[in-house]
């Protein structure tokens, strides 16, 4: 038996590993084996037209990821052994990573499920392999985030039952409904939503603030996780762009379908990122940049270049991107106000910004902050100092689509709440914006099923009608996980550590 010692190059090896693995089925028609990849109306004439953005084979993938994971776990171990949590700038920072764990980690897991599903249901082998690899990435990200953040759970509150909270807590219905919406769509809409609109167009706005925020604030464990995930994210972004180009090149009739998805998922993603806006401007003791600056850099500049490039396929920039740009000087203040109003029902703390923080906000938002927002923070702070910390005693009206409390204002009048409404089958629905209304109007049959936390409480589906009953149903420890940071167990513990440290230094 003669052996062929010739070594294949990467491209040949990749072709052998990803092409010709499939076959035309004969016992069952292909359309029955792949029942989901035609109903959305996307026409694919040649699945081999798929250009693999990364020629990564499975064996290389395992080797590479195992190496990264070894390094990550070494850092996490040393972070734990050296009491790394003591090195953060201030315990208020920890509230940002409570949002990361309860909101984002669950999305990583949801993404794993979504890409596994799509990786089964596209009949072309190239995109199927790419989706399956991404499914594994997402599962790894969920696991490594859980392991990284479990260290904080030993000392700080609100980390203990994130999985349970994801399915129940009012503000976590925002990320949950975002992903459930994507996962219940067809496979092409799912990849457009997650891979392109979120991972390609908007991901830097999620990733950079959390990771730079972690670096600026001494959270080396989260930074290491971020570095470990970064090369995967680069791959996901490329997949996002490739899938769009693939659909657009296959058939002209695909263009309007893809455009509508981009419009929808840009807006849904942008609304989801309003949580990040709040985190950047209010929750990082040491600021990285303002939300408005991040929006300018990562969307207005980078996004404009991207959509210029896509123009030749007949695509235009997402509808309502101009509204998002109009909102950049108010978004974080409106969202922080929502959470300040309802901190008694949240699994993290909010607080009154300190003087230097208010000054920073005045400087970053010279046209809006002093005039519109600073007076409310000053008033709230006075009230809190007088033992009268303000909590909103009624539940908020929610947007039917994004499920965020209706705290956003008219694009051309930041002093008026923006109300939009649709009637479908004699039933009224309310929205925070034209973007959210358009999404509903296109597929009202889907959103009439929205599980809106406030309405569910009214129906008695959330453990009772009293706030205390609802918090119990959320698995939220009342008086510990929620309420103002000032006077919280987190704050007391941090103050004690800091006092001990200065004593030891004397």
């Amino acid at each position: 038996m003669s052996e062929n010692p010739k070594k294949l190059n990467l491209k040949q090896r990749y072709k052998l590993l990803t092409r010709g693995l499939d076959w035309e089925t004969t016992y069952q028609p292909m359309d029955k084996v792949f029942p989901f990849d035609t109903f959305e109306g996307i026409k694919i004439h040649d699945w081999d037209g798929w250009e693999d953005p990364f020629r990564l084979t499975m064996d290389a993938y395992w080797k590479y990821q195992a190496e990264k994971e070894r390094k990550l776990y070494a850092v996490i171990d040393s972070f734990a052994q050296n009491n790394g949590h003591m090195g953060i700038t201030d315990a208020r920072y920890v509230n940002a990573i409570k949002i990361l764990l309860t909101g984002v980690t669950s999305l990583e897991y949801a993404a794993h499920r979504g890409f596994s599903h799509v990786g089964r249901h596209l009949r072309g082998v190239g995109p199927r392999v790419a989706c399956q690899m991404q499914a594994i990435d997402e599962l790894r990200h969920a696991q490594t985030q859980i392991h990284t953040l479990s260290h904080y759970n030993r000392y700080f509150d609100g980390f203990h039952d994130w999985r349970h909270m994801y399915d129940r807590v009012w503000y976590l219905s925002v990320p949950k409904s975002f992903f459930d919406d994507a996962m219940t769509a067809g496979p092409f809409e799912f990849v457009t939503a997650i891979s392109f609109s979120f991972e390609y167009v908007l991901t830097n706005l999620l990733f950079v603030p959390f990771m730079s925020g972690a670096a600026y604030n001494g959270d080396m464990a989260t930074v290491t996780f971020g570095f470990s995930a970064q090369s995967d994210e680069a791959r996901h972004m490329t997949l996002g762009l490739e899938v769009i180009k693939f659909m657009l090149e296959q058939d002209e009739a695909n263009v309007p379908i893809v455009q509508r998805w981009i419009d929808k998922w840009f807006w849904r993603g942008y609304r989801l990122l309003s949580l990040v806006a709040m985190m950047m401007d209010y929750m990082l003791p040491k600021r990285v940049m303002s939300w408005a600056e991040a929006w300018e850099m990562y969307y207005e500049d980078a996004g404009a270049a991207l959509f210029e490039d896509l123009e030749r396929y007949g695509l235009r920039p997402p509808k309502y991107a101009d509204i998002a740009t109009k909102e950049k000087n108010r978004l974080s203040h409106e969202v922080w106000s929502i959470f300040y109003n309802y901190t008694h029902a949240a699994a993290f703390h909010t607080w009154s910004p300190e003087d230097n923080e208010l000054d920073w906000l005045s400087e970053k938002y010279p046209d809006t902050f002093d005039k519109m927002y600073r007076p409310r923070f000053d008033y709230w702070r006075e009230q809190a100092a007088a033992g009268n910390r303000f909590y909103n005693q009624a539940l908020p009206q929610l947007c039917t689509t994004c499920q965020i409390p209706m705290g956003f204002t008219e694009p051309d009048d930041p002093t008026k709440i923006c109300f939009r409404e649709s009637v479908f089958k004699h039933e009224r629905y309310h929205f925070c914006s034209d973007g959210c209304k358009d999404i509903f109007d296109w597929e009202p049959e889907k959103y009439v099923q929205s599980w809106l936390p406030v309405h569910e409480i009214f129906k008695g589906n959330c453990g009772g009608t009293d706030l205390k009953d609802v918090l119990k149903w959320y698995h939220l420890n009342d008086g510990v996980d929620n309420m103002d940071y000032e006077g919280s167990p987190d704050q007391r513990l941090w103050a004690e550590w800091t006092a001990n440290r200065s004593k030891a230094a004397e």
Partner: protein
Amino acid sequence: MAIQSIGDYDFPARDAIENFGGVLVTYWNWLDHLMFCAPVAFPFPPDMRFGDVLEQVFPGVYGAHPDFNKIDWAAARWTLDGQTFTPDLDRSLAENGLGHKSVVKFETPGLDGIKGSRT
């Protein structure tokens, strides 16, 4: 535009009135007072007196605002689902025309929030 789906796709509205055990879900927005970050939602019986909302419910919610005690209710301007209207405080919510998921907005002239910030 009808939804694209793999089969029949017709589900009941989750928030239809019959799912709320006899109450109307109503939304209230005090204009120019954005310290209350969003309109508030209440499940009210349709035969509740409109005036009871002002007298029994509002103080526990809007009372946290320094403008609240200065409100001259006789001068307040109201809209119901986008139309101006004058509520009859002694009649019920239903008699005043409120339905399921109605939006009531009110403006209190002369009161423009903390330091005039519409907050």
